């Protein structure tokens, strides 16, 4: 007996001896393991044994609930399962009551193309022609702070396995990133590690990285946000769901072996072991093997092609605990598993650790007895290891044995679905009014606002060189954007576009957006602004927005201020989805992103997916043809609160830009129709950095200059030149219109009653961006400023 650690669950337990499974592949570990197994029988006899539930992150009421559900104390293995499955990360216990709105605020229009909704590994949307698309965004925030390379790498790995689990071939990834201040010494550590990890893993999978975001703000210093999005495509008939049905069907675990990674919390269960020499602390961060994942992708696609699996689930958070309980509770409700059959990398792992391990590149599937042989042939072709763990039953119980002794006997629903749900108290923070009253205009930081031509030119250059507005090429040039041969657009265009069908050109566009400052100023509208921007970016590319996936990054839900931000953001997002007519099909909530009592800005990252009937019609963000007319769509108000300009001057207060979702929809329709009918050759949405950023980016895209005069805008909207350039009013875009299409284009805008102003022409020979009232800006100097920032800080 070790007997040394607190909460020993070994006292008086029976001793079992386990050898590796006879089904293990040659070369498997055959070392005899001895554990003091806390069986169900033993647990029933020893109700008073102290258990380390607090160390595993459970609250007293939650532990009491487990005892009530089971009618006895849990075994060590059961405790391990419940503790991970009832964690905030797996159970959504603080957000569930609010997240319901995504399922409730749904119109028939929104359901029309939804083939699989929230609740599965990822939602599925109908693209037509028999094609379906699935996408999802997830967080891997805290691992990426602890160990940036592996944290970010395994974030990609996990989201890609979610996509495979739906039966889809993954076709692209994106990464929204939020780090601390650009000049803070620790930011470089996280930046280098995370970018190298995303590249190192993603590039090895053969998935093009088609865009994302990069935001620097000191609020993310101790809580960087590393979100990852993956998108996959499939034929309708290939859609797979995570359920275990059909009594007698076999349960198989395949892919990488199970090791000791990602089970930091399970260390308190070390008292299960006799062996004092085993590592006392297990690493909390998982380690990725992209080669294993790449092989797993191909191997799964071959399984799907042959219809060899009935249900499939990837192993992510909570590992085997999650996969067995979810597969069982989504299916016929029963499963019997022999845990010693699991192939291990580390023979000293205890049953609880095996159940909790988050080793990467593993999948669990349900296979009919008739398909076992064919399944094994596919595994052998790809040299993937597998172990048959047990079978589906109709008992309604998930029974896990260790050398035949029952160590888990639970109703899987109680583990996977019926966890605790909290109505956390929330209230509008007392400081909110003061923050909203502190407007930028007239503030100390607003002193010396640029107005002279030289000052404005300097301001534009400063803006496009600022950490958040500078070129992200330093990052995206470390990612493979080409692999697959279907990438039609990627960064720096507004949306990433990937072809799905080579014959018809059918494709999808994707964009992710969030503005933590806006959401801090007003969570309800801030979340809507994130959705509006992603929607606008997708429409700007010419695609019809179809579906939403969101990654809600917030502080602690136990803080009523933060809980209010979360509740308001979800309410705002779900309301806005109704107006725009696109459903949320999946996503993820990441809470406790705070250092001490200081939370991050509420950061709902919203991904929108759109459809292009033919990607050849997509609209890039820059102009190329000399003499084309440049139009500004939408109107400009004095909206500088929360803007990049105010941020550069160190101000955060006031109200974020006004949301007008009907205007966003109208703008989207114009951009989509103009793309479809060949009326525009370029389009760039206006968001952070306003018109100034959009004009510079549209010029630098292909290195082609323009002459701009904004007098008509100033007269119509009643704003000055500085405001016209730096305001972040929503519902706007800049488009390049061929001369031959000008009448048709303006007629369309007029017919739709949408504000449009001709603000200039493309000037290919000039090599400059000329804006009336602003000193001439040479493209070379702008490029140097725009592209120089990240290399300056990160080498």
């Amino acid at each position: 007996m070790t007997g040394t650690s607190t909460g020993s669950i070994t006292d008086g337990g029976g001793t079992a001896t386990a050898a590796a499974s006879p089904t293990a592949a040659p070369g498997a570990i055959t070392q005899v393991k001895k554990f003091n197994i806390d069986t169900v029988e033993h647990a029933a006899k020893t109700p008073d044994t102290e258990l380390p539930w607090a160390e595993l992150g459970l609250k007293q009421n939650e532990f009491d609930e487990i005892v009530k559900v089971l009618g006895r104390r849990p075994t060590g293995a059961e405790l391990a399962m419940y503790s991970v499955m009832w964690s905030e990360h797996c159970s959504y216990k603080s957000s569930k009551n609010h997240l319901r709105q995504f399922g409730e605020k749904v119109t028939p229009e929104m359901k029309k193309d939804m083939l699989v909704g929230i609740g599965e590994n990822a939602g599925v949307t109908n693209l037509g022609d028999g094609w379906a698309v699935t996408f999802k965004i997830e967080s891997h925030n805290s691992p990426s702070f602890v160990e940036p390379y592996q944290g970010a790498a395994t974030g990609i790995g996990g989201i890609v396995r979610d996509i495979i689990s739906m039966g889809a071939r993954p076709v692209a990834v994106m990464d929204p990133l939020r780090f601390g201040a650009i000049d803070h010494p620790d930011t470089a550590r996280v930046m280098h590690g995370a970018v190298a990890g995303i590249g190192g893993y993603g590039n090895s999978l053969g998935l093009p990285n088609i865009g994302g975001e990069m935001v620097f703000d000191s609020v993310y210093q101790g809580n960087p946000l590393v979100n990852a999005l993956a998108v996959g495509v499939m034929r309708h008939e290939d859609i797979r769901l995570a359920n275990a049905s059909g009594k007698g069907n076999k349960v198989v675990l395949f892919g990488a072996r199970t090791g000791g990674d990602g089970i930091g919390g399970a260390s308190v269960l070390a008292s299960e072991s006799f062996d004092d020499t085993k590592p006392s602390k297990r690493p909390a961060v998982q380690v990725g093997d992209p080669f294993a994942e790449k092989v797993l992708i191909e191997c799964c696609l071959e399984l799907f092609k042959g219809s060899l699996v009935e249900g499939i689930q990837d192993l992510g958070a909570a590992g085997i605990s999650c996969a067995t309980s979810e597969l069982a509770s989504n299916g016929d409700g029963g499963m019997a598993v022999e845990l010693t059959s699991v192939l291990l990398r580390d023979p000293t792992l205890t049953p609880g650790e095996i159940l909790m391990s988050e080793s990467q590149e593993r999948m669990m599937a349900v296979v009919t007895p008739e398909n076992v042989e064919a399944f094994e042939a596919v595994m052998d072709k790809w040299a993937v290891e597998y172990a048959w763990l047990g079978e589906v039953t109709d008992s309604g119980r998930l029974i896990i044995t260790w050398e035949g002794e029952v160590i888990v006997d639970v109703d899987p629903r109680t583990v996977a679905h019926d966890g605790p749900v909290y109505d956390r108290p929330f209230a509008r923070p007392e400081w909110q009014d003061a923050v909203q009253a502190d407007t930028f205009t007239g503030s100390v930081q607003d002193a010396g606002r640029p107005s002279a031509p030289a000052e404005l030119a300097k301001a534009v250059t400063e803006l496009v060189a600022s950490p958040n507005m500078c070129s992200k090429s330093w990052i995206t040039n470390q990612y493979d954007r080409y692999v697959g041969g279907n990438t039609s657009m990627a960064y720096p265009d507004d949306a990433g576009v990937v072809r799905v069908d080579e014959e018809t050109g059918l494709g999808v566009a994707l964009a992710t957006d969030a503005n933590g400052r806006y959401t801090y100023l007003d969570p309800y509208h801030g979340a809507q602004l994130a959705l509006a921007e992603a929607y606008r970016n997708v429409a700007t590319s010419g695609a019809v927005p179809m579906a939403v996936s969101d990654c809600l990054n917030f502080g602690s839900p136990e803080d009523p201020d933060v809980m209010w931000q979360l509740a308001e953001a979800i309410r705002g997002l779900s309301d806005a989805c109704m107006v725009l007519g696109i459903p949320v099909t999946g996503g993820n909530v990441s809470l406790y992103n705070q250092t001490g009592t200081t939370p991050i800005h509420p950061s709902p990252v919203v991904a929108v997916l759109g459809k292009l009937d033919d990607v050849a019609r997509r609209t890039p963000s820059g102009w190329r043809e000399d003499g084309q007319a440049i139009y500004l769509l939408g109107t400009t108000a004095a909206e500088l609160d929360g803007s990049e300009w105010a941020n550069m001057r160190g101000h955060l207060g006031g109200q974020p830009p006004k949301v007008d979702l009907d205007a966003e929809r109208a703008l989207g329709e114009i951009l989509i129709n103009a793309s479809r009918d060949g009326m525009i050759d370029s389009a760039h949405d206006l968001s952070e950095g306003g018109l100034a950023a959009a004009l510079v980016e549209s010029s630098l895209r292909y290195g082609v200059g323009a002459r701009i005069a904004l007098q008509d805008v100033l007269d119509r909207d009643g704003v000055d030149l500085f405001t016209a350039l730096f305001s972040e009013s929503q519902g706007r875009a800049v488009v390049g219109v061929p001369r031959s299409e000008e009448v048709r284009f303006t007629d369309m805008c007029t017919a739709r009653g949408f504000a449009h102003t001709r603000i200039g022409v493309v000037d290919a020979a000039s090599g400059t961006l000329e804006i009336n009232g602003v000193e001439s800006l040479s493209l070379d100097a702008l490029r140097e400023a725009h592209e120089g920032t990240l290399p300056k800080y990160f080498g």
Partner: protein
Amino acid sequence: MTELPLIGEPIAAAADASGARGLAGARIGVVTFPGTLDDRDAARAVRLAGGTAVELWHADKELGDVDAVVIPGGFSYGDYLRAGAIARFAPLMSKIIDAANSDAKLPVLGICNGFQILTESHLLPGSMIKNDHLKFMCRDQVLRVENSNTAWTLDYETGQEITVPLKNQDGQYLADDKTLDALEAEGRVVFRYVGFNPNGSRRDIAGISNAAGNVVGLMPHPEHAVEPGFGPESAGSGGAGVGGSDTDGLGFFTSVLTKIVGGK
């Protein structure tokens, strides 16, 4: 309707419209190792050039009926050892080595990881190490065609500059000076980087050939510049480095078809 083909499963004979050009009869094998990534892209490039792509599996014991072979890019076996070091021992590789060295001089093109595999196989001299800046780099790279007499460059002019994507972690080409001198003297430097050396390769070398000119290896990816709308001009990062075309890489694949069909 284009189904997404599985790796290791023969692609249906994709003769399609290109049959009219009389090239579809030319069969170009595309090798897949575990961890190969650009095999579908290489097969598409062959089809767009007018040929028939034939999928080859690393474990195959025979090369079968192919007129040329492309070893595409990726991270074979994860490249956890030295890039290409394990792939070189695949059963199919020994067949490819034999065919390349035979009197028939099978045309072989190694792209990126394929180039690394060819040097590991000693079909080409030298070796690749990590980029001098130590990062993975993806960019649109200008290359100069230094020798248009190889099986894979017939359709280019010597001195012609083309833009194709480059993307790698271990792309720094190394060889001793004697070898480099010999390569240059014998016209076996087939491509050089122009304007910017993206990985520290010796003498700006981007690609080389064997003495007979049937085996060519290069780090950049011509198969990513073969289709309007999906090459460097459209999908690239843009800006100053952007080339004027999406299809500068197609010449590799038309060259070998010309060679096969025309018997050059």
